[in-house]
């Protein structure tokens, strides 16, 4: 019963269920978890690699200095993608549509919040009177 039951759960999991829970990796049968560990190991190696490049980039003089913040942002986004795919198991598969859509909405709001704030506030700083002049006017 025990092995049989495990297999039938796996079948339900794999074939008939239309959706995957975020983070779910479908390790049900005992022999399956080598595969799961392999996924985490690949993700870990990729993440460590990207982290090392980021730390190197921040202090290297090989890169044109003004481009460093953008390069770091790109590396951070790449690493977040690695985390999402290998650790959170958010993939582009058809059973993952709901999870991806929720994430896409979240990313939209995050972008609006961060870039909107930066955009408005830099303009505000440009338009604003310098602080010393402001002080003079208040006297």
């Amino acid at each position, binding site marked *: 019963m025990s092995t049989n039951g495990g297999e039938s*759960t796996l079948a*339900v*999991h794999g074939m*008939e*269920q*239309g*959706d*995957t*829970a*975020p*983070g*779910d*990796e479908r*390790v*049900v049968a*005992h022999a*399956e*978890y080598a595969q*799961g*560990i392999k996924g*985490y*190991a690949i*993700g*870990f190696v990729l*993440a*460590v690699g990207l*982290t090392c490049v*980021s*730390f190197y*980039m*921040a*202090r290297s003089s090989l890169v044109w*200095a003004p481009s*460093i*913040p953008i390069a*770091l*942002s790109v*590396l*951070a986004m790449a*690493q*977040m993608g690695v*985390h*999402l795919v290998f*650790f*959170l198991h958010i993939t582009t598969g058809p059973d993952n*549509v*709901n*999870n991806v859509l*929720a*994430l896409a*909405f*979240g990313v939209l*709001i*995050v972008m609006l*919040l*961060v870039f*909107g*704030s*930066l955009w408005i*506030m830099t303009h505000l700083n440009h338009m604003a009177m310098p602080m010393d002049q402001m002080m003079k006017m208040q006297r």
Partner: protein
Amino acid sequence: MSAVHAAAKGHAHGADLTEAGGHGHAESQRIVVAYGFWIFLISDIIMFAAFFATYAVLTDSTAGGPSGKDLFGIGNVALETAFLLTSSLTCGLAGIGAQARNQKLFYISMAITFVLGAAFLVLELREFAEMIEAGAGPSRSGFLSAFFALIGCHGFHVTAGLLWLLTMMAQVYAKGFRDDILRRMLCFSLFWHTLDIIWVALFSLVYLVGVAQ
């Protein structure tokens, strides 16, 4: 209940929906719970984005005080990152251990995750203490207020995660690998991995960009 299934599935496969309640109840509940928790995590990320936007706006508002370049120690951040990244790996292994009902893998991975998370927290608190001692506390400038709020918020999440981790170990010890415990474990590992994703943004865009400028 079938309405919940229908809402969770979201697909237009009519035949699928009528069958969903019939079999695999545990699996579909697992999807509903994890999806709900995923929505929570995304709103948590949005909250972090608000803190981050505040920080980004206030980076240069140092009020004549120290800037990120003067304060941030790259070695400390590298160590923190190493701890948190490795704890994400061991948390994944603990999840696999729980799924496979392998007690040894579960307990050992969870214990390592706890130690790494606690080490991360110690380093962060030490950094905070050093900064405050050097007169660069949250009340020094707008930049430092935003910095302490943003990093402190992440540290608070890690603290909550550590408490949750201990709770999960205790629950598995007391109740075994029951379906509901496994669902909680899935939510916990989602939470922990999400904290690591947020840390990626923080170490890259707060610390490394701060040092590079």
